[in-house]
């Protein structure tokens, strides 16, 4: 240990003597580490943003939409017909073992008025399960209950964007808003969720009991009074999603009396799968960025080896002298190894600072979210030390095994 301290002192002294060269050598590592930190930060930020968006949708979600049917060769688009009902939603929840809860929804646009303010937004008719399913929490007030749904209560839950536009900073709870000439009492305000993965404002919404929404606001579907726009389904766990889809498929075909061989009149979308694909592509990007940056770290390491080899040649007489006055081979080895590691570690530390600064600048100026993890910093630090040892060993060994006689004569 004491020996190592001595080596460290000798090495630091030697680096001090060659300040410019030390700084230039470190530059390679600084750039390498900074690039790794910044790139991994950008990659991790992108991945994290996608994850957060997926979280905001709700977990283990499947969406069932009324499907297209064809009638006399004319194909209607998805949702074109009212094939999906509240009863379907209930049946899925009751009969499919892999399904935890379901939430039938209807939606439409509406102008909302409070006093002299008004705001155009999306009105959704939902059941209380919707809140659980979408992982909503209340910023203030209460969500409506199943009793409110059964009694078609005129209660509204506002998204944060709507609340802000109608009420400003005031608390909307208990106030009355007018939606399509129907007065609704505000039951509460949802905690904001921000953008959806597709860029929509998830807080620009008003939630009403589904019964009230169909009867008073959006209008009853003439073909089927119980029709819903979509049914959101939550599987009991991520692994059960595929099983749940199969169960629903079978159940709905049976309920809709679709003969084998005919097309479904509904469609099922696995949201998690869609976003997982996005997430994995972001991860691939992060790995690629990190890998490219790592190459520059290796180039930096080769720079250290290069300079150390030059330094060993240039200091051949010094090495010969040190050997003559009693330095052992391992003293010389550790001196040069410590020099290389000091260069790479100092470069690593500065590189970490530069990298962290760079990734903050990126998120500040380019508005990209970046995430510099403690892990990335620790790994870069460790890796730069390893680069020093790996690329410093060969020159150090070369120095240590010089013959003192020839080294002393070296011109």
């Amino acid at each position, binding site marked *: 240990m*004491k020996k190592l301290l*001595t080596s460290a*002192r*000798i090495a630091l*002294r030697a680096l001090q*003597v060659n300040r410019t060269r030390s700084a230039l050598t470190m530059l390679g590592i600084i750039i390498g580490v900074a690039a790794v930190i910044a790139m991994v930060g950008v990659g991790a930020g992108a991945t994290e943003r996608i994850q957060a968006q997926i979280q905001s949708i709700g977990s283990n979600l499947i969406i069932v939409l009324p499907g297209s049917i064809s009638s006399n060769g004319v194909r209607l688009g998805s949702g074109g017909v009212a094939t999906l009902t509240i009863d379907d939603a209930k049946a899925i929840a009751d009969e499919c073992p892999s399904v935890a809860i379901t939430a039938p929804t209807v939606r439409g646009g509406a102008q909302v008025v409070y006093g002299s303010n008004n705001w155009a937004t999306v009105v959704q008719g939902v059941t209380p399960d919707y809140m659980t399913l979408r992982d909503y929490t209340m910023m203030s007030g209460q969500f409506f209950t199943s009793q409110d749904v059964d009694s078609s209560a005129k209660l509204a839950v506002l998204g944060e964007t709507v609340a802000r536009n109608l009420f400003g900073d005031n608390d909307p709870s208990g106030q009355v808003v007018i939606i399509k000439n129907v007065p609704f009492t505000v039951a509460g305000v949802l905690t904001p969720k921000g953008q959806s993965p597709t860029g929509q404002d998830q807080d620009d919404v008003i939630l009403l009991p589904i019964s009230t929404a169909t009867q008073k606001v959006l209008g009853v579907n003439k073909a089927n009074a119980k029709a819903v726009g979509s049914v959101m389904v939550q599987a009991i766990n991520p692994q059960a999603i595929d099983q749940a889809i199969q169960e629903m498929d079978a159940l709905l075909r049976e309920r809709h009396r679709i003969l084998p061989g005919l097309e479904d009149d509904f469609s099922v979308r696995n949201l998690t799968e869609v976003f997982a694909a996005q997430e994995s592509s972001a991860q691939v990007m992060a790995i690629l960025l990190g890998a490219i940056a790592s190459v520059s770290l290796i180039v930096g390491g080769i720079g250290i080896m290069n300079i150390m080899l030059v330094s060993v040649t240039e200091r051949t*007489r*010094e090495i*010969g*002298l*040190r*050997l*003559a*006055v*009693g*330095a*052992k*081979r*391992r*003293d010389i080895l550790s001196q040069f190894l410590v020099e290389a590691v000091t260069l790479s570690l100092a470069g690593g530390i500065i590189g970490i600072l530069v990298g962290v600064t760079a990734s903050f600048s990126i998120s500040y100026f380019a508005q990209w979210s970046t995430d510099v993890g403690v892990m990335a910093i620790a790994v870069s630090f460790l890796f730069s030390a390893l680069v020093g040892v790996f690329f410093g060993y060969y020159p150090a060994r070369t120095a240590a095994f010089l013959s*003192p*006689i020839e080294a*002393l004569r070296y011109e």
Partner: protein
Amino acid sequence: MAAIISAQNLVRDFRLGDVPVHVLKGISFEIERGEFVAIMGPSGSGKSTLMNILGCLDTPTSGSYTLDGISVGRLESDELAEIRSRTIGFVFQQFNLLPRTSALENVELPLLYTDTPAIERRQRALKALRAVGLAGREDHQPSQLSGGQQQRVAIARALVNDPGIILADEPTGALDSRMGLEIMAIFQQLNREKGITLTVVTHDAEIASYARRTLHFKDGKLQLDERVEHPRDAAADLRTNGGSQDPPLQGLPEEAADVRIAS
């Protein structure tokens, strides 16, 4: 007095391609503790090879070499380093000081490879610098010192480990005659007052005339072992030849006395 150096039938062969070159062809001699010996010979006579073996930088092909009671013949490089560190001080023709490094740090260098605490390192280096008349120049870098002063720093570095023997390889070769004389004066003084054994390789008969004994080599063999009862006194020659312009050397006796008391 016991022999500090005892060489018996030293042989050193090198290989140049397939041709073996016999550089030392069986050399035997002893050097007593406290002697001042010059080794002379033309180039190619094997005196540098001999010096490397005496300095434990090289080992003989055959024959035995005992230094300070230790048979050095077949030691490993680390053990040789240990002996160099403890027993030998080197002085080279080209000084071999570390550039851009203060005189003090240059002198401290050998102590870095022994377990000497920092404070003691510093004290011993200061003392060694004083002993060669360079008090006050501790912070000078080699480029700020004259050739003679640089060689004196190198001598201080050789002294700092309290070695029993100093091996000097053409120590005056890179200096003018006056500076060479200064170096010889310091050597004579160290030899006389501290009892350090001195072995100086030179091709200059003038320089050899300050030693009490001269070993003449030729073609890898010891030709002549010549002893002088009263060698020339370098300090006296300095005073007569060229006056006394160099103050550090004038101050030397007191400085050296200080060293003697301290050690």
